């Protein structure tokens, strides 16, 4: 059953990669990338349980942190044109 869930999530990641390559706007690609990150977390957790090494969950936790930091960085850059410039630099 672990293998079945892993297979379903890998197929889902393939569909999300198609959307990320084909998405008309930046936001479609960012949404697909965010969901790919969630799928990667699940793949790490399931693979760790499948091979009897649950220490992969630490990698999954790190992936979750990096995923959201990256998403918010891209959104802030798109909104403000910079990632936190100094106050005197802002026009």
């Amino acid at each position: 059953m672990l293998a079945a869930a892993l297979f379903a999530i890998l197929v889902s990641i393939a569909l999300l990669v198609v959307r990320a390559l084909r998405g008309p706007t930046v936001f479609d690609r960012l949404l697909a990338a965010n969901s790919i990150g969630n799928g990667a977390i699940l793949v790490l957790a399931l693979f760790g349980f499948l091979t009897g090494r649950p220490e992969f969950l630490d990698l999954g936790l790190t992936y979750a942190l990096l995923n959201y930091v990256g998403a918010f960085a891209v959104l802030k850059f798109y909104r403000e044109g910079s990632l936190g410039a100094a106050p005197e630099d802002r026009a």
Partner: protein
Amino acid sequence: MIDLAREIVGALFLVAGGTFFLIGAIGVHRMPDLFTRIHAASLADTAGVGLVLIGLMVYGGLTLVTVKLVFLLLFLMFMGPVATHALAAAALQAGLKPGAEKRHASSPARKTPVTRKGRGKSR
């Protein structure tokens, strides 16, 4: 005996979570608009991830691994809606309007228009 029951319940949760994640990914692939795609992705990020992690908690027993899974689930449940809201707000600010767009090329158009009177017709 209790191990068998735990394994069965965990497998049910895992299969349900994988199914939800797959349905959400199919929705992201086939929906016509950005905001409908956000709606589909929220299903995958909430129901799919949550059910798979709960299934792993049931499957693994009560160890330190369960604590890690609880923290991962809490973090995802807090940050997923926040990221989705930020994405939708940025898309609205960029000028995308939620509404009727043209049907996307990957989703097939209906061959016959849907009518209430056409229930007995042969196709």
